[in-house]
């Protein structure tokens, strides 16, 4: 009832682990797969090992999380073993990568392919790392070039993850149109100040906002892009329960990714969301979750 196919990849359910959450070590990814996730996106991996920012790198808000991990990652050369381990989970593994220019993206994508990932996700949207992520992801020409070149270089599907920190997510989505799927959205640039400490909490000062408060922004982005770009969309941002996942899919997403809810609801969140979705579909006489994709689009 929950099975979906995207770019010929088969997912037992449309609930993927979002990049950056519990996906740095192979063992952890394996555990997430065994907890019921339909697929796993790895932490964004770059050319060389990066320690990321100093603590604090995370801040809990009543309605979401603020983070500036700083693209900490072990570097592509150290990541083969982790992928190998993660693959034991039997669900598609999507290798997320970030680079500072076209060549880096191409190199990283090929390397990921050689490690056996089922697709690559281009992180064009990290909101808090100088020279990477959204700094690249709002430059339309560069986005087009990166996506195009990576597409030419690998045989596996290429997903592009897009920033909401823009006046037109549709314009960016169009620039990334050559990708096999679009992932919407990454976090929003944000900050929290501790007034007693009289300073921003995160060591990097600015971070990305995720969690429930992001959902209306993500749903809007998916809804807007669905009618403009003819590629599958993967929705991300603030999904906590079955209704949230269905909301994204009705907006036009073929699958969704889940990040912050792993903190608020634990690893059980994948099975609980799947159960809630099934219950709703059953009550409303749907046989397959595919039938609701884009159902809320008003002409």
């Amino acid at each position, binding site marked *: 009832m929950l099975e979906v196919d995207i770019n010929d990849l088969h997912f037992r359910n449309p609930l993927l682990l979002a990049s*950056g*959450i*519990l*996906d*740095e*070590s192979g*063992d*952890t990814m*394996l*555990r997430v797969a065994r907890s019921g996730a339909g697929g796993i996106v790895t*932490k964004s991996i770059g050319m060389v*090992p*990066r*320690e*990321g920012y*100093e*603590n*604090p*790198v*995370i*801040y*809990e*808000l*009543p309605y979401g*999380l603020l*983070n500036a*991990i700083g693209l*900490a*990652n*072990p*570097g592509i050369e*150290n990541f083969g*073993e982790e992928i190998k381990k993660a693959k034991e989970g039997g669900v598609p593994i999507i290798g997320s990568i970030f680079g500072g220019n076209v060549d880096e993206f191409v190199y990283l994508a090929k390397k990921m392919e050689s490690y056996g990932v089922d697709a690559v996700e281009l992180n064009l949207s990290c909101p808090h790392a100088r020279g990477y992520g959204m700094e690249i992801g709002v430059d339309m020409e560069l986005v087009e070039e990166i996506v195009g070149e990576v597409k030419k270089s690998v045989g596996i599907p290429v997903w592009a993850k897009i920033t909401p920190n823009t006046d037109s997510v549709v314009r960016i989505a169009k620039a990334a149109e050559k990708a096999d799927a679009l992932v919407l959205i990454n976090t929003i640039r944000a900050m929290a100040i*501790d007034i*007693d*400490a*009289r*300073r921003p*909490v995160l060591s990097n000062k600015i971070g990305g906002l995720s969690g429930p408060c992001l959902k209306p922004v993500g749903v809007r982005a998916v809804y807007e892009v669905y009618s403009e770009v003819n590629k599958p969309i993967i929705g991300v941002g603030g999904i906590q329960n079955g209704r949230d996942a269905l909301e994204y899919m009705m907006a036009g997403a073929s699958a969704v990714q889940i*990040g*912050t809810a*792993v*903190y608020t609801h*634990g690893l059980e969140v994948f099975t609980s969301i799947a159960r809630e979705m099934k219950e709703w579909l059953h009550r409303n006489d749907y046989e397959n979750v595919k039938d609701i994709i884009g159902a809320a689009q008003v002409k």
Partner: protein
Amino acid sequence: MYRVVKIERIKKETPSVKTFFFRDKSSPMPGQFYMLWLPGVDEFPMSISYIGEIKGFTVKKVGAGTSRMHSMHEGDKLWLRGPYGHGFSPMNGKILFVGGGSGMATLAPIIERLPGDLLIAARSRDELLFMDRFKERKIYVATDDGSLGFKGFAHELLEKILEDTKYDAIYTCGPELMLRKVIDIASSHGIEIQASLERLMKCGIGICDSCSINGYRVCVDGPVFGSHELAEMDELGRYRRDRAGRKVPI
């Protein structure tokens, strides 16, 4: 969101360890920890070493953050979030607590709640932690340099003790190599064990994967693990993850 607490009293425990007492409304369980923020300096995990109305952190000076703490005064403020993680749970039978170095800080609250004997180990005599606090208990002592009690490592003393005395359960915390040995010894003697582990922690709330060991997150699945989980952790005492997430030998 952080809570701000005021340091009410500071006690020097050993040349490298101080306890900082404060009031806070939270109700931690023995073995739980907090994330402690010193604005502009660092944020790091710290076990609760005194539970009750007046709480305490017992802190060993190791780097920038803990050094800053050691230079703080009564009346200064600490920012904290938590308590986090799974603490110790009760076990039956005759109990031994094995604490190495500042590991005694983590063990102290569970020692206070349960009867049992102690094995306190440290490099040298003046680094032995909480000898006074638990002076009514039976304490086995080990020092690396032999300046008090058994000369040698905690696990060596443990093996000797187990030759004569039967224990049903062990609670332990300390340097990772010691933990590895203590766990192996307990396992070979069929003794139930709970160990509190340490790993690099960035988030403290189970999402960043920096503290993971064989797929277990020390921050939320631990920091205290039982015999069954510990048996699965072949990385323990062998590999850790650095700040970039690389697996490096210990």
